[in-house]
């Protein structure tokens, strides 16, 4: 294990709009690790993912997040993306009029440029795209269509994973990527994510249900409640949660307080 974490979250407080949501999160992710964050609705899971990618409307009020030792708060969203931070969105946006292929190539080249690499030309890109599309079992005709336009919920999520496969980020955040997926889609998505597991990369899975973790087995599981991590453990914690429900944690927290 390397000495320094890839991601260091230090006493992070953040607001969504004007509402304080995160109330002191501490978390280290080392390269090669997969962490899962679970928690009931409203516990701050999505706020955490939005803060990490710098979405407008979410503000860090105190504390810090370091990515490879650099303060994330000082980077614009596109710089974070180019540096290797990636969020697979819970609700991928539809963008009529922008063809998927065109968008993906633009994004890949924006990141390559940042890394000092040459742009991929249309043919090289297409080769790469086809290879990655196979991994998420995406039919080729979906690429000619506009971004997510008319895609089913499962197709949108697969498109997010496809973007992750193409952009090869070093820090992947998956925000409830399992929500709304049937079992086949879940398997495909998980398969894509597992392809990305590597010693150079850290992943943060944000999920409400244990189900996803049958397919993507995490190294660490954390429970978020009331804007704080109230319990951490290994994959068995997720099973325990599934069995006993979030009430168990919340009661436990209440009892210990």
């Amino acid at each position, binding site marked *: 294990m390397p000495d320094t974490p890839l991601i260091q979250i230090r006493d992070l407080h953040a607001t969504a709009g004007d509402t304080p949501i995160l109330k002191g999160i501490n978390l280290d992710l080392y390269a090669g690790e997969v962490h899962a964050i679970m928690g009931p609705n409203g516990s701050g899971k999505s706020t955490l993912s939005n803060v990490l990618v710098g*979405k*407008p409307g979410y503000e860090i009020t105190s504390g810090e997040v370091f990515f490879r030792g650099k303060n994330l708060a000082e980077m614009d969203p596109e710089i974070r993306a180019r540096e290797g931070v990636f969020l697979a969105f819970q609700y991928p*946006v539809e*963008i009529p*009029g922008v063809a998927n292929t065109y968008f993906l190539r*633009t994004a890949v080249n*924006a990141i390559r440029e940042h890394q000092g690499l040459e742009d991929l030309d249309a043919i090289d890109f297409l080769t790469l795209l086809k290879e990655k599309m196979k991994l998420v079992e995406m039919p080729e005709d979906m690429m000619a269509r506009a971004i997510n336009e008319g895609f089913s919920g499962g197709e949108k999520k697969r498109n997010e994973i496809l973007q992750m496969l193409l*952009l090869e980020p070093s820090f992947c955040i998956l925000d409830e990527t399992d929500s709304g997926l049937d079992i086949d889609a879940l398997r495909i998505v998980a398969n894509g994510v597992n392809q990305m597991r590597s010693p150079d990369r850290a992943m943060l899975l944000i999920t409400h249900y244990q189900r996803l973790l049958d397919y993507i087995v995490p190294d660490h599981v954390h429970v978020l409640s009331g804007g704080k991590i109230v319990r951490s453990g290994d994959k068995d914690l997720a099973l325990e949660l599934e069995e006993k429900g979030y009430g168990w944690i919340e009661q436990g927290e209440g009892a210990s307080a």
Partner: protein
Amino acid sequence: MSKAAESLSRLHAALLLPSPSDADSLATSGITAAQPEWLREQRREALARFEEQGVPTRRLENWKGTNFAPLEALSFTRAGMASSNFMSGGDGIDIAIPETEEPAATLVFVDGRFDATRSGDADKDLPAGVEIKSIADLLQADPDRLRPLLAQLTDTKRQALTALQNAFIEDGLVLFLEAGARLIEPLRVQFVSTGSPDGASASFPRLLVVAGENSEATLLTEHVCAGTATGFTNYVAEFLLARGARVEVVEIQSESAERIHVTSAFARLEQDAHFDSHVFTLGTGLVRSELEITLAEPRAETRMRGFYLGRDAEPSESQASKTKAAGEKLPGSHIDHFTTVDHAAPHCTSDQEYRGVLGGASKGVFRGRVIVRPDAQKTEARQQNPNLLISDKASVDTKPQLEIYADDVRASHGSTIGQLDQEALFFLRARGLGPDEARLLLTRAFAHSVVGGITNESLRSTTTRRVDAALASVGALSSTNAAATSSGAPGSGDHR
């Protein structure tokens, strides 16, 4: 009479009263004494109507959004470019006609007059039953053929600028389609405006399409300037569609900031005819573009599409020093689209969508009139006018006008004024695109929904290139707050 009206009338005198003693005027007008008496009478009548009405002012209901006073500021020294040696291409004038990268042949009209040399062989190899003629040629060779067709859709009593155009008819393009004829490969027509060395020039390009029963045609009309070309382009197009005829026309207006452009297009559709109009306003000057469609017989259908891009003017080098000296800046685009669709018969459909992107200190105006006459039952009429403001100095004024006199009608209209979708913008940035690139991508997407409506593939790709080039030149698409005014009924409504 206003200054502009006076100077235009003065130019016009040569057309009306050619006499041997006025040889100079004759040479510059290019019209010979051989013009038919009916045309001379038509000119006289049209000029009288123009002089009665004068240049439109904002006092007129239909001109409230647009100040046309800049026309008054022009001092015309030349109407058209009509010397005979010019027509032979031996004019020695270096006209930098904007490149057409398409392999397809293009018919070129310079200052409204057909330029055979520059047109190459665009008029060769036409399909059976398709004929193209220049108005000037027809007036010489077969004026009676033109008489029942030319200026049939124009109304000089209420359209001063169209009256002026009628008075100045010199040349233009006539496309005849016999019954059943099909012009599938699009006809490309370029109207080039050139300047005048010592003042403003005026040009009066003209188009007449006569589509016989069940005929089909696709065409592109493009308005460009060779250089600055300070002046006034007054273009009139008429489309006569017989039963079952289908015509698709793409018009691209990209004249300079120094040229005032007016398009007045008219179409009349008989039973089962289909008219597809796509208008793109990409220039940086003052533009008034009118489209008036009459659905005269049952089951006629029209699709009216428009895209306008407002932006600041980029003065040419010589112009930059001039305006600097004068201490003023060119105002940027002012684009006024005025559409009318007249449902005069039952079971007709009109589907209208004009989209605007306004940047810099530009202004957009949209007025869309939909008239449904008492016996036009089972009418379907849709009108949409979404606008995107990408600068805090830009503004848009949009007003739908529905006049429905029938009761069994489906009509809807909506106008929106908004900014780029912040969620989409963030998504693109989260994938590594810079803010300017993300905005450009979304703005292009907004425009491309209009471009994408062009049925003909080759015209769609030409238009895509033109629109993309214009959008790219807007530069950093600002995301700051934009001002909006909306008169009449903003938002949307349904009438059933």
